[in-house]
């Protein structure tokens, strides 16, 4: 039997987690965890290098297995196309970084912590490798459950409340999107959850307008809650504030992108008319993300809350790209998702590093940390620049493409989106200034007198380097992602053309 790299990337972390749960001693558990986090990342990078340039819309590395539900049209079908490949790479790399950081974190009950993180990692690899939309949903839930538990047990302040709120919001979102997926499955008449067949079916016989309207609406709000669409975003800053750093990295960096990815891969091609119907509403809500949440981020005094609200705010750009319902907008959204995933994971990682040195997240009690920890300061400044979208980082290409797409659909909206960049620059640079520069505050001087802050250790530097390296790599050579992306987006064009033909607006 031929070894299936995608299945291997999903199964390795899950198998390692199972072995750890079964009672492996701690010493071996940690060593095995390196394998569990390393294998998916290695496979993801290897597949990236092997991905054929002119793949078009076709899925690569396909395989299909029947697990007992084939009579309902459900099969474990795995594969990657140009849209899922960047996400798959993102999941692998952020997973490895989060795993490396968790291993050195010395958390209580480290074994269970690592095992849960590995389950999450396995689920994430599965989400982006699934061609079957049932398993796409299934793997998302598989990754979501450990998040709740990790927030509840290893979380910080308000963990009980945060875990409860997170669970309720995300389950509601997941249920709505499941209802939408089933609606589309049922209305298409294809009797299968296989995305390729569903797309072909939708192209040959588009769904009725009513089905598209309700289907896309359910998916939009279901996925929207999962991606913290304004005004359903309140779980996110609270949850990330309470979550342990590795869980926050994986969730905000990768798992949250599930909703956007679902909108791009499932909702947009299958219900393009529905997308056009909802695009006005989505634009308003997404501007709420960019402007209102941006202003809320300005008012935060807690470092983790600043990063959390910033992450919610940046989701608005991706939503605007989807609301543009154009090929360029979708491409920009994918680039944005990858770049944002890397940069927000890096910011969460570095925030926790800062916390270990200042013993507080409160911005008003910090200052002058750069004198003690120059390397940490350099990393943090770089991450901030990336999230603002400076050229040279991957984020630049994502934002640039998005602004072009948004401008084409409405210059006014584009003006609002660009105003968001200014807001980002203000709150992000203010945070940098408060943490690292200026005279040390009284509270911080007391901490320094107690334990002098040490600079970033290698165990912390390694995961940070990994994330920063990829950000710069994509920033300087965007072709590496845009080439497969372009060829895959070609497949969206006919679906979006259907929309244009059926669009009642002039």
């Amino acid at each position, binding site marked *: 039997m031929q070894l299936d790299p995608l299945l291997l990337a999903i199964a390795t972390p899950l198998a390692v987690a199972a072995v750890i749960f079964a009672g492996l001693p701690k010493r071996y558990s940690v060593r095995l965890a390196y394998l569990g986090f390393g294998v998916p990342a290695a496979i993801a990078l290897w597949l990236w290098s092997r991905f054929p340039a002119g793949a078009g819309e076709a899925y690569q590395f396909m395989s299909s297995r029947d697990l*007992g539900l084939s009579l309902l049209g459900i099969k474990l079908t795995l594969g990657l196309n140009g849209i899922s490949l960047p996400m798959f790479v993102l999941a692998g790399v952020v997973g490895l970084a989060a795993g490396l950081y968790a291993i050195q974190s010395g958390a209580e009950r480290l074994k269970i912590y690592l095992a849960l993180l590995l389950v999450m990692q396995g689920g994430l690899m599965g989400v982006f490798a699934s061609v079957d939309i049932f398993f796409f949903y299934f793997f998302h839930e598989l990754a979501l459950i450990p998040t*709740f538990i990790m927030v*509840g*047990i290893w979380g910080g302040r308000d963990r009980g409340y945060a875990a409860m709120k997170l669970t309720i919001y995300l*389950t509601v979102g997941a249920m709505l999107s499941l*209802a939408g997926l*089933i*609606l589309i499955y049922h209305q298409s008449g294809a009797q299968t959850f296989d995305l390729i067949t569903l797309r072909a079916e939708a192209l040959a016989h588009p769904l009725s307008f009513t089905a598209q309207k309700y289907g896309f609406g359910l998916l939009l709000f279901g996925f929207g809650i999962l991606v913290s669409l304004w005004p359903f975003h309140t779980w996110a800053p609270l949850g990330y504030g309470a979550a342990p750093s590795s869980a926050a990295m994986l969730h905000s960096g990768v798992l949250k992108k599930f909703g956007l990815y679902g909108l791009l891969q499932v909702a947009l091609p299958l219900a393009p008319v529905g997308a056009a119907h909802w695009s006005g509403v989505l634009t308003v809500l997404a501007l709420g993300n960019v402007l209102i949440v941006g202003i809320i981020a300005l008012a935060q005094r807690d470092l983790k809350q600043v990063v959390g609200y910033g992450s919610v705010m940046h989701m608005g750009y991706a939503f605007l790209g989807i609301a543009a319902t154009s090929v360029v907008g979708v491409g920009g959204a994918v680039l944005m998702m990858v770049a944002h995933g890397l940069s927000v994971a890096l910011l969460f990682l570095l925030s926790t590093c800062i916390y270990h040195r200042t013993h507080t997240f409160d911005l008003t009690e910090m200052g002058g940390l750069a004198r003690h920890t120059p390397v940490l300061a350099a990393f943090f400044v770089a991450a901030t620049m990336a999230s603002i979208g400076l050229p040279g980082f991957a984020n630049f290409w994502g934002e640039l493409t998005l602004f072009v797409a948004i401008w084409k659909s409405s210059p006014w909206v584009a003006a609002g989106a660009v105003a968001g960049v200014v807001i980002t620059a203000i709150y992000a640079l203010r945070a940098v200034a408060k943490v690292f520069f200026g005279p040390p505050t009284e509270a911080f001087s007391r901490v320094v007198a107690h334990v002098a802050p040490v600079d970033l250790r290698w165990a912390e530097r390694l995961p940070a380097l990994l994330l920063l390296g990829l950000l710069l790599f994509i920033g300087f050579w965007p072709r590496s992602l845009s080439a497969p992306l372009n060829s895959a987006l070609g497949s969206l064009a006919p679906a979006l053309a259907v929309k244009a033909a059926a669009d009642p607006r002039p």
Partner: protein
Amino acid sequence: MNLSLLQSAAADNRWADLFPELPLALLALFLLVLEIVLPKRQHRSIPVVAILGQVALLVALLVNLRGGMTEQLTFNGLLRHSPTGQFFRVLFLVTSLLVSILGVVSLARQRMPRVEFFHIVMVVAAAMMLLVQSHHFVMFFVALETVTVGFYILVSYFRTNPLSLEAGLKYLVMGALSSAILLFGIVLLYGAVGNPALAPSGIAAGAMDFASVRQFLLAHPDNFLAQLGIVLVLSGVAFKIGAVPFQIWVPDVYQGAPTPVTAFLAVGSKAAGFGALVVLAGVFAPCKSLVIPVLSVMAGATILFGNLAALTQYNVKRLIALSGVSHAGYLLIGVIAAYYDPAALSGVYFYLIAYLVASFAVFGVMTHVCGENEADQELEHYADLAQTHPFLALVLVIGLGSLAGIPPLAGFIGKLMIFLAAFSAGLYVLLGIAVLGVMISIYYYFGWIKAACFSAWRLPTPAGEAVPSLPRTPVAWPARITLGTLAVASVVLGLWQGPIIGWLLAR
């Protein structure tokens, strides 16, 4: 009495077809014999005999699974053997086996006679098997009463515990009422079907026979007496499954009953009710236009009531009781959808399997996390369970997750199959209610998990004062194996359904 009629009836009595029922009842009697014969010191081995005997029966039944699937009537049309009946036989045998295992744990804490408990459980299980295979209202009622009378005793089994007695009394009153309603409905149907003036040609069997009831309804779907009878019979069954508006007994009885009996009520009694309902739904199919609205209103109200009422509970037995009510609502949706597409029944059956596996995992943990007074089980008793008993906490999380319908656990697949069936049947309103119900249920299921796994803040105890100890029973190895198997089964059935769904769909 005509002798030749008796002869022909006797020729129909194929005792060998009653394979698991008869040996199960005989095993139950054998336990009583053992109690008389064996010296008192060796009475402790009687539960072991009960459990091993049921395991042996289960193996024999599974080996011979195809043998019982002949579509035929036996005992002069009293019983109808079918693949569905065979499925429920396995389900009830597993249920009584698991109840017996939990019973050993629970009875060890009490000063009570032991053997009768296992005896009654097995007799009730045998009666449940006959209930779902009955093809005649007399057989139906006798089997149902055997089940109900057995439960009267089981619910008040801890006779020194006032709450158990109260529960027994409530169940007795409510059960008697429901039996009366059911009987009244049967009599009305009998009166209508047996009316010679209305009899359609070709009714050979008596007026209580399911086939002739169905034939009559085909000919006269608008007969008022028959319609009233149908509604009353459905009401009687609704008592068994705890559907709104006949759910009023559920929380009190579930709380007061010994935990293994609660499990038996929650899984066994409910599955038996649904087995009967599926059979009756087929019989009443000609009156679809009456049955579907009645069941739909019931399903919607049941889901909403169960979930909303469970939100406010702090006693876990009441919580699981009310959440069980909502599960009956989801299952009812499947039964309704089966009117549009018979394949929906496979969803109901898979849901029952998943519900059994998950419920017994939770009830198994509940049996261990309580003291002598089994009615007193609050959420706060679960504090720090993950620290002191990680194994129990893991089983609890998997069981509750499966009940909540979270992937990758079996409960999710069950809910998915029912939702898919409801979608293709076009039951959008019910589906919306069901989705809403699932969302509400996350709150209380997760609240329970939170109580067990996330360490809570507690009043600091003054120095020198002992920390109040929480009621916990150590987990012996048979229970450990059982609970471990149930937890693994929930996960495996969620990931790999293998031949089960194929078998359920292909019937």
